[in-house]
Each structure stands twice: as C-alpha cells, then as structure tokens.
C-alpha cells in the first residue's frame, strides 16, 4: 500500500461515519492493548494473581464497572488487559499466516509448472480440513499456551492467503510491465518481489484487516473449549468461559468480555470494509458520487 493510497483511504474513512466508527474502535482496541498494564484500576486482579473471597460476585458498580468474578477479581481490569492478549493473538496469527502464505502463493503463481502445482496441492490439503477443527486439533496437540494458540491458528489460516496471492499473481504475471522487467534482464526473484508482489497485495491487505477480527474470535473459541491460553491469563475467550459456570449468579463476568470480543470484531469488519471500498476504483467512484 503506497502512501498516497493510505491517505486516500483515510480521507474516505473520515467522510463515512460507519467507517469512522470502525477506525475508532480499532484504534481504541490497539491503544488499550498497548497501554493495558498502566491503565487497569486493579493490576493484580487483571493478571489474575489475587483471590478476594469477600469481593466475590459483586455486581457492576462505580468501583467495579463490570463487576467481579468468582475469585473476587475486577472484571473491568481483566477485560482491559485482555485487549493486550487479543492484540498479540490477532497480530501474531495474521502476521505468521501472511509470512507463510504470501511466499508460497507468490512462488507457486509466478513459477507455475510442476513446482507451482505441487505447492498449491499442498495448500489444498490444508484447505480440505475445516479451519477451526484443524486449529482445535493442533492446539490440543501442542498444549495450552499463548504461543501454541497463535501457531495452531496460523497453520489453519495461511492456505487462504496463499490461494488469494496465487490468484492475483496469476493475473499479474502476464501483464506487459512484468514482460518489460524480463526484457530488462531482472532475475525472477527481483521481478516477483518488485513488480508482482506489490501489485498483488491489495486484496490481501483487505483480507488481513478482516482476519484480525476473526483471529480474536477463533482464539476466544479455542479458549472457551479449553484448548486455548492457560488460566489465569485474562484472554477474552477464557474470561467468557470462566464466567460461564456462574452465569446464573454473576452474568457480568461473561457478558462484558463477550461484548469486548463482539465490538472489536465489528470494528475490524467495518474498517476492512472501508479499506476494500477505498481500494476498489469502481466503489471509490460510487462513494464520491454519493457524497456529491
């Protein structure tokens, strides 16, 4: 994505209140994730190191805006710190999946032939598994823990990127500017990196923005099923799962982390929509027309 494109995207986001909502949610989430340890009202509660029997199951109040859980910990602090783990997971999963998926799709698409077919058949093998099921199996095998969750999700995720890049590269590699690069005498590696990849990344950027939200959702799913991060890590999915047992007496300890997941995922979706609109020239035109 070039600087000009980024500026245009920002411009289009600013004029659209829905996109702006997405941007605000995502920004708030990222800031919360980065600053979490410093802004939680009860840091010990947030890390899950405390046990206050006299403060168990307190309903939401000014002191504890999201109430307290079965261990008497402040849910608000735990949700805020949870943003850090969700941010780590989403960046880790999408980043790792891109790191595996892009080179495979690029090489398979550009070189084609037998090597390309082999790479894509391997990709298809991974795609043949339902992604969440594959992630559950991997997470269960690797054992609980943040890094394992990221690895498990990334392994079930990269084939989608590699497909997407493959399709893009296939349509780009026959364009005249790629021929021109060949005529200059550039090596296939330089042609791929300088001419093919930068032009293939637009849809990948949009997909990655969407997937940041989905990764949080799936990691929460893994935690909820008991194959995710280790307690007492305040990961949102784990918080929902922990509160689930006591939902009858303390609905707040499940509800607020659940809402955090919901709002963040919606935020990423709105933002991804805005990026997609800004990158599609036809939609871009339609947006400009709508404004007039």
């Amino acid at each position, binding site marked *: 994505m070039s600087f000009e494109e980024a500026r245009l995207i920002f411009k289009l986001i600013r004029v659209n209140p829905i996109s702006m909502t997405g941007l605000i949610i995502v920004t708030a989430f990222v800031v919360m994730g980065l600053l979490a340890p410093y802004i939680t009202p009860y840091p010990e509660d947030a890390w899950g190191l405390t046990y206050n029997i006299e403060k168990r199951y307190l309903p939401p109040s000014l002191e504890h805006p999201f109430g307290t859980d079965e261990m008497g910990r402040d849910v608000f602090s735990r949700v805020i710190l949870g943003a850090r783990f969700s941010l780590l997971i989403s960046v880790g999963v999408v980043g790792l999946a891109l790191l595996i998926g892009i080179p495979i799709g690029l090489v398979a698409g550009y070189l084609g032939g037998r090597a390309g077919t082999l790479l894509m058949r391997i990709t298809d093998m991974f795609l043949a598994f339902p992604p969440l099921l594959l992630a559950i199996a991997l997470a269960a095998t690797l054992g609980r823990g943040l890094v394992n969750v990221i690895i498990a999700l990334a392994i079930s995720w990269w084939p989608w990127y590699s497909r997407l890049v493959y399709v893009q590269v296939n349509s780009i590699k026959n364009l*005249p500017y790629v021929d021109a690069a060949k005529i*200059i005498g550039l090596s296939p590696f330089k042609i791929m990196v300088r001419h093919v990849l930068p032009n293939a990344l637009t849809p990948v950027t949009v997909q990655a923005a969407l997937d940041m939200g989905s990764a949080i959702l799936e990691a929460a799913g893994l935690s909820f099923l008991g194959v995710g991060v280790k307690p007492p890590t305040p990961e949102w999915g784990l918080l929902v799962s922990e509160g689930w047992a006591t939902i009858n007496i303390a609905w707040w300890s499940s509800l607020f982390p659940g809402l955090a997941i919901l709002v963040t995922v919606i935020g990423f979706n709105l933002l991804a929509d805005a990026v997609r609109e800004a990158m599609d020239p036809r939609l871009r035109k339609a947006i400009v027309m709508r404004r007039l």
Partner: protein
Amino acid sequence: MTLLNVVNLKKYFPIRKGLFGRVVGYVKAVDNVSFSISENEVFSLVGESGSGKTTIARCILKLYDPTDGKIIFEGKDITRLKGKDLKDYHRKVQAVFQNPFLSLNPRMRIADIVAEPLLAHMKISRNEARKTAIKVLERVGLSASLARRFPSDLSGGQAQRVAIARALALKPKLIVLDEPTSALDVSVQAQILNLLEDLSREYKLSYLLISHDLSVVRYISDRVGVMYLGNIVEEALTEVLFESPLHPYTQALLSAVPEPDPSLKKLRKRIMLPGEPPSSISPPKGCRLHPRCPRVMDVCSKGEPPLIEVGEAHKVKCWLYAKK
C-alpha cells in the same frame, strides 16, 4: 552490417485437452519466417491480428522459446542463451509496448522505472542511476519535475515517452516496437514517431516495428515485411512496397488504407478479400491465401509457393511470380 538475422523461425503453441493435458494440435503462430535487420535500420512487420507478428517479437525478446529456427544477433544464436550471455543480450535488445499504462508498473515512480535497467546492469548507486534516468527522461522530452510522479499521473503520450526512456536507458542496439502508437491519440502519435526517428539517428538504433497501421509503417520504416497467417508473404523497401506491391494480399491490404483526397478516392479500386483469415491451427494447404485470393490459380492449392526474389531486396511468396 547485419545486426539481427532470423532464420526459419517457427513457434507452435500446443493445444492441450483433457485431464492430463494431451496435445491435440498446434497453433502455428509463426511458421518458417526468415528476415534480417541491419544496423541503424528500421524494419517493420505488418499484418492483421493473429498473423504472428507479435509472436516473432516475443521470440526475439526471449519471452517465448521458439519451436525451431535460429535468431542470430551480432553473429551469435540467442535461442539457447543462458546466464551472463543472456543478461548481455537483454542489455542490447529492448522493447516498447502498445499500452504504456500496462507496461509501466503502477506502483513505481517514473525515475525509478527508468533507473531500474541501469541498476540491473551497472554497478552504480541508486542516486546515480536516478540522475542518469532524469537525463534520459529529458532527452525523450519529459520534464525532470515528473521524476517523482507515478504513471497514473501522466497522459498517454507522456507515459509512452517514459517507456521509451526505459528502453533507451541502456543504449541498446535494437528496440522492438510493438504497436508503439496504437494506444495513443492521433496528435500524439506523430510526436512519438518523430521522437523515435530522432533517437534512431542519434543513437544509431535499429528498430523492429510491429504494427497494423500502414501509415505509421510507411512514415518510419526503411524496409517492410507483410505477414499473413504466420508467413512473411512479401518483403521490400518501404517505397517499393507501397508504390508497387506484388503479392495479392499486400495489394488488398494497401487498398484498404483510407484515402483522404476525395478526387483520388474515386480513382482507387478497393480489393476485397472474401471471408475471414482461416485458423492457424489448420492453415489451408498450398498457399495460405488461396481460398481468399482474387488471382488464384490451380497450382496455388497444391504446393506452398517459394519466396521468390523479384528485385533488389524484394521478395514475394506467390506462384504468380514463379518463372515458368
């Protein structure tokens, strides 16, 4: 002196069908074509779409491997070049394509596009390469202020100048021009043609011009080859070809050029060829033009006509001119 010599060039594209890609036939895009280009000469290939002229260009540019035949450049066959020799060849043979907006990477700045070939072949810093690139841009008539722009900021004519600057940057011997003006406005076409002509004189360049626009071909070329269904059917000096075309196909092709003068228009007779060009998967036996030729004879369907020398540097592939 001969710079490029194409000898019996063939390029067949296999047609594959079914699960295992069984070859069921071939598209004979280029079938036994020979021609040569001298130093500082402009040679044109004309013909309708599908006649194989672009395929020849792509074989010369090493974008396709020819099925058979030789392409001899400066005395060396380049069809099997590898490694350093191939890189040297790329330095000497460049190209300009039809649509400049497709032939320039939309995400690169103008100066970087022109500097790229320099960086690929010379041991110079990015800054030096950019400086040289700006000089080349100025030579092709672009202002240095465009150097930091992207291709989408330019007009068609400006973008084509950038493509020419990129081809020129390495001071090549031969530039393949594949329809260099067909995507441009008529007013811009003339400017680009004049620029190309000036450059060929200044840098002693040879051009292989691929075009279906006969007025462009007539304006700029020294010699012309006319292509029909993968063959060169007539080859002659430009003036000779346009004044006294011999092959029935050339005659029909030239009669299709619009005549702007109404009084002359009445005098001219349009030669119409019936039907469409047949498929190059199974071209007609004998002379490939015979099903459509207005002057067809018995012999035409029987044997392929030889390339007959009828004058100085004038060759025709037609039975009409065979000595009995």
